[in-house]
């Protein structure tokens, strides 16, 4: 098992290098640093000197991949790729356009992101699995039919509608909770309720339908017939036999997103004014701050790979066939 995890971690390395190369190609090959300087400084009235100054200030004056002038190790290290991309491996993300340290900023914003994403995730999982299990339990009845219709309709509504509609109705018309913002400490819950509820509601449609399909697939399996032949009541058949087996495919889709919860949600955070990583990313996109976007891409990839490894580990917890391999 340990050897397996180590191997997975080592396998993650070439993937992260690949991710870095892709982002590097996107940021520095599609557009030269000159293009970006012109962009940041405004296209019209920009002098070559200003461009040069902008580049030197931010370390974009070096060669891209290989510095022929510098000798030895410096020919690799004294380049934009090494300075900007390779350094991210050790957690050095550099500075944003406004001069702030990106790593510090990220550290500070993780908690608010998690405060929304984690409750949304757990509550959402609980609600959708319960709903899907109920639909599967009453399969081929009118309840199931209308449940699925509801899911398809819910799936067809834009996520933006849930947010805008929820904010308008709950905060503006009913004035139950603040429309947006974030408070420190325990006071934060008043700001969290609305985004969490909206996050859960907007996810119900598609997840429920997916889980229902998984449950129905299990229902038709042979071991379920065996369980019924034992004279077990239907509830026991569902909770002891079907749920246990259905958890295996459900886990694949679910565990992989757990680390990504740290990244926060772009939409929710920016709509509700939560100072998390999601709104940080949005602000960076709107300000065209490449350093921040690049850092977020890197962190996102790392978290995704962690998620993959966690998925494999969680398999061994629910599936004895893999545990004993």
């Amino acid at each position, binding site marked *: 098992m340990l050897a397996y995890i180590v191997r997975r971690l080592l396998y993650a390395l070439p993937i992260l290098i*690949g991710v870095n190369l*892709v982002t590097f190609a996107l940021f520095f090959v599609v557009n030269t640093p000159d293009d970006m300087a012109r962009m940041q400084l405004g296209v019209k009235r920009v002098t070559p000197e200003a461009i040069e100054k902008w580049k030197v200030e931010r370390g974009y004056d070096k060669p891209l991949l290989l510095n022929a002038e510098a000798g030895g190790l410096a020919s690799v290290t004294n380049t934009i790729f090494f300075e900007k991309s390779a350094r991210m491996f050790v957690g050095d993300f550099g500075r944003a356009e406004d001069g702030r340290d990106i790593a510090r900023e990220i550290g500070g914003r993780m908690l608010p992101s998690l405060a929304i994403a984690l409750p949304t995730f757990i509550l959402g999982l609980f609600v959708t699995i319960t709903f899907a299990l109920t639909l599967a339990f009453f399969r081929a009845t009118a309840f199931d039919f209308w449940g699925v219709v509801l899911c398809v309709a819910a799936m067809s509504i834009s*996520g*933006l509608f849930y947010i805008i509609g929820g904010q308008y109705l709950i905060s503006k018309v009913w004035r139950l909770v603040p429309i947006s913002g974030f408070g420190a400490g325990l006071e934060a819950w008043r700001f969290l309720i609305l985004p969490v509820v909206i996050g859960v509601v907007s996810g119900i449609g598609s997840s429920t339908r997916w889980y229902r399909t998984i449950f129905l697939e299990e229902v038709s399996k042979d071991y379920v017939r065996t369980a019924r032949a034992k004279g077990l009541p239907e509830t026991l058949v569902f909770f002891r036999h079907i749920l246990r087996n259905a958890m295996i495919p459900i886990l694949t889709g679910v565990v992989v997103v757990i680390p990504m919860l740290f990244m926060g949600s772009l939409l929710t955070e920016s709509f509700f004014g939560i100072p998390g990583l999601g709104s940080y990313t949005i602000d960076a996109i709107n300000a065209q701050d490449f350093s921040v976007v690049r850092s977020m891409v890197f962190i996102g990839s790392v978290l995704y790979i962690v998620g993959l490894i966690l998925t494999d580990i969680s398999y061994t917890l629910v599936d004895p066939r893999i545990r004993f391999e």
Partner: protein
Amino acid sequence: MMGFQIVVLWSDVLIWLLVAAGLGVGVLIAKNPPLLAAWRRVGANRVGMASATVLLGFILIGLLDSLHYRAQLESKPGQKAAYAVEVLSVLDALASPLRSRNEKTYSEPFATRLYAKETIDVPGQGTVRDYPRLKHGGKHLGEREDDVVEDAGFTAFKAGVLAFVGWLGVFGAVATVNRKKSPKLKLREAAFAWDAVLLTLLLMALTLVPLFWLAGQYHVFGTDKVGQDVLYQILKSVRTGLIIGLVTTLVMLPMAVLLGIVAGYFRGWVDDVIQYIYTVLNSIPGVLLIAAAVLMMQVVIDTHPEWFSTAAERADLRLLALCFILGITSWTGLCRLLRGETLKLRELEYIQAAQAFGVSSWRIIVRHILPNLMHIVIIALVMDFSGLVLAEAVLSYVGIGVDPTMTSFGTMINNARMELGREPVVWWSLVAAFSAMFILVLAANLFADAVRDAFDPRAA
């Protein structure tokens, strides 16, 4: 008569190519009974056919909006003909009353006056602060401004009756054809779900005909900040949504199919390389990859203004770039699915029988594997559509979607959202955009379900 110059945008090319491909695939299907049987099952599905009818309506709007031209400007004889900077489409021409009759700013649906009070000169009374009368909305009423409900109701009724008569004609035609083809069966029992199609057509006729009829006299969905008719914006958004939903899949399909099959069939190092590529792409969070790519694309567009002769072309290029980027981020799922399925297929005995004859690998892929994966490809194609339409709205909101000058559901929602804080609320553009998008996506989802049920071999 005014001359015009045909403008072919890249997205037009792709969308008509898609239409041609669709027709080509249709011909192929007609020759292949198993596929035809699956499509017959789709055709027998009432919900599926009702939603297909709605989708066809949207597609028609989109296609009309994909024939572009530039009108000739008035010029003296002998002078070289000059053309307008504005690129118009056939849809614009058909809906020119909607397009041209702009108000000053917001107005509610069916309003005769603007939404905000202004200082106006009234002859004989000096300046008054009042809601100014709209330039176009309800103009024909003249002084009878209070009669809006009566007038609109009567017009709608007239149009409704006319629509119903027209629908009866369609119904009669279908019934006659049906009777000739299969005299014994009633329409309800026909193999093709004609009843659902006709019912949907009736509902569409009863809502759309009065709507457009009234649109000639009122702003049925109101106007936006710059006074543009919201209904017109909705019509224009349809094409954007369709292109995002269809062209993206078209872009990613060949890559996903080719790489997925090749990885599954040849295995070994080919498989390793392809798996590496899609794991790398998969591990970059989708939105961020799109954000990064769109930002870079924007820099390219901004630093090369000389590439585009019109704003429409620039917006069009950005739209296509978005499609490509979405395609690149979304092919991995299908690729993985096809790889897994190919791994299963290649162990099947008919593949081994072909190998025993020494049939070449590529021929096995084309003859044996690809046709047996078609159902997955078709299901993926229709399933992805609705997700992409929804994604466009979100991306445009985040600022990494289509060009802000291009009308789309996303840009409409984004513009309207700012006005929710106003008192009284400006709700109409938002509601109209969400409703139109909901109808489009719901129809796509229901149609996708029908297709999946018909093509899924487990269901068959």
